[in-house]
């Protein structure tokens, strides 16, 4: 089953925990939580959302300079947004990991799928400030940077990628849907390799407050440690905490990887995307069940073969309950954890970050802990709490569920 099969040949990741794959893996296994309180920095003190898992731009620049040179930093441009810097970093890391710098492919046989939308809030704020000074001083390059596709364009320029490419937006399911879309382009022969990049989402104060006002975001509690506030599946959970994260997976046909002599870190067995036919925020258990079954069916495996589920689990009251119900309806007793408990909800990039975390857990035979899970629900599923579980893992499934009825699942295997 070589022809038509798709493998993961490279990884890159930058989150609040770490700006390289190895360090990210180590923090996952330890169950380090990257959630903290945002410094005020002159922001309106009335703004309620204060919890976040942020990445400092300096850390991303330093990693980019250290691993890829000063030229790589310059490629992002003078006014580089954090999203662009992080995209270049994770893309170059995955590229190097897949040995595409040493064993290249024809530029038109490689594509990019950028996951996520509405990640240009920072550019909009900058342009508004220019505009307030004088319309004549609005930066002309903002005309380039205002497009969500700008990080994709920078990556294509940086790595010389010229094949079919697009941005994929599916709210919080963007990353998972992007992997699905890239896999199809590989299976149908359009591309030999495709770099899926999850765009780091910097929320504006307004966007952040709107999400908070839906009631889905965890409120701060000055008497509690910030890291305890995000508790997916726990009885005391109170909402999600947003996080900065960018990740890249280099997907490639098994034939291409074999002919380049590159080892597969994991295989993508199958995936599914469905809409619930709803423009709201509410989750849909029945659609989730359908998506899980369809992804498994396309992968040619029975539900019982799934050892590990990387749940969408944001820590929201209703969302976690619905997902648990869907998982119970489909599976026997797989291990289940929630990576968002450690790095926050990376929104449009979340599905790609989760895919990286899933591949690492498959490779190392470990299911990362969730230190906040103290009062787990009564369920036959093996929800992983404060201690990591070391066990051989063969098959995993990762979920991405988003506002607007987006539901997606991807099945990965060693």
């Amino acid at each position, binding site marked *: 089953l070589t022809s038509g099969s798709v493998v993961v040949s490279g990884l890159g990741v930058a989150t609040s925990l770490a700006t390289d794959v190895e360090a990210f893996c180590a923090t996952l296994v330890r169950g380090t939580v990257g959630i903290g309180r945002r410094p005020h920095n002159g922001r309106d003190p009335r703004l309620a959302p204060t919890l976040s898992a942020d990445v400092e731009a300096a850390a991303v620049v330093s990693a980019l300079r250290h691993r890829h040179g000063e030229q790589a930093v310059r490629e992002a441009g003078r006014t580089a947004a954090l999203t662009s810097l992080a995209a270049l970093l994770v893309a170059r890391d995955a590229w190097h990991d897949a040995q595409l710098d040493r064993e290249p492919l024809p530029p038109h046989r490689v594509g990019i799928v950028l996951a996520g939308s509405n990640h240009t809030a920072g550019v909009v704020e900058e342009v508004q400030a220019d505009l307030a000074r004088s319309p004549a*001083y609005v930066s002309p*390059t903002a005309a380039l940077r205002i497009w969500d596709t700008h990080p994709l364009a920078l990556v294509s320029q940086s790595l010389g990628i010229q094949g079919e490419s697009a941005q994929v937006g599916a709210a919080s399911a963007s990353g998972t849907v992007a992997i699905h879309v890239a896999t199809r382009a590989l299976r149908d022969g359009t591309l030999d390799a495709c770099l899926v990049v999850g765009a780091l989402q910097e929320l504006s104060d307004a966007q952040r407050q709107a999400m908070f006002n839906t009631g889905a975001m965890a409120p701060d509690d000055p008497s509690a440690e910030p890291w305890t506030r995000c508790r997916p599946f726990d009885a005391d959970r109170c909402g999600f905490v947003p996080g900065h994260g960018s990740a890249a997976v280099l997907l490639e046909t098994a034939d291409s990887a074999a002919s380049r002599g590159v080892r597969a870190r994991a295989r993508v067995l199958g995936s599914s995307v469905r809409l619930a036919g709803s423009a709201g925020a509410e989750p849909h258990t029945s659609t989730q069940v359908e998506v899980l079954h369809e992804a498994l069916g396309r992968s040619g495996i029975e539900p019982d073969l799934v050892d590990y589920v990387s749940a969408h689990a944001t820590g929201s009251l209703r969302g976690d309950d619905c997902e648990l119900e869907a998982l119970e309806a489909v599976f026997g007793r797989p291990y289940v954890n929630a990576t968002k408990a450690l790095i926050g909800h990376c929104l449009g990039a979340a599905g790609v970050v989760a895919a990286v975390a899933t591949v690492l857990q498959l490779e190392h035979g470990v299911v990362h802990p969730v230190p906040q899970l103290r009062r787990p629900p009564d369920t036959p599923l093996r929800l992983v709490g404060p201690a990591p579980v070391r066990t051989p893992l063969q098959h995993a499934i990762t979920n991405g569920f988003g506002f607007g009825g987006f539901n997606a699942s991807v099945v990965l295997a060693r």
Partner: protein
Amino acid sequence: VAVIANRASDEEPTVDHTREKAAMTTTRAWSAELDAQEQTVLAALRSCVQQVRPDVDTTRVTPAVTLSELGCDSMDRAEIVVLTQEALGLVVPVHEFAEVSDVATLVRLLRRHS
């Protein structure tokens, strides 16, 4: 944005060395004629070139040279011109840049509006 495009250099990237030598002579002659105000404009322009293209040697920003010859593309040039206007606290109507070819004409145009 076709402003401050040097038409010749955009279409003909090849360098004519005789022209370059002539330009260097002109540069020296022209520089000598820079008045204090023009020197200020040129200094601001150099600083903005540095911000937009840190890889360009700013001592090469001389009157007879074009920004295109220094490797600046159309977006770099537009960004440099907007930054320089802000640095000098002046506003030049965009269409006036159509007549700009080299650094000399750009400096003169900016000075006219200061």
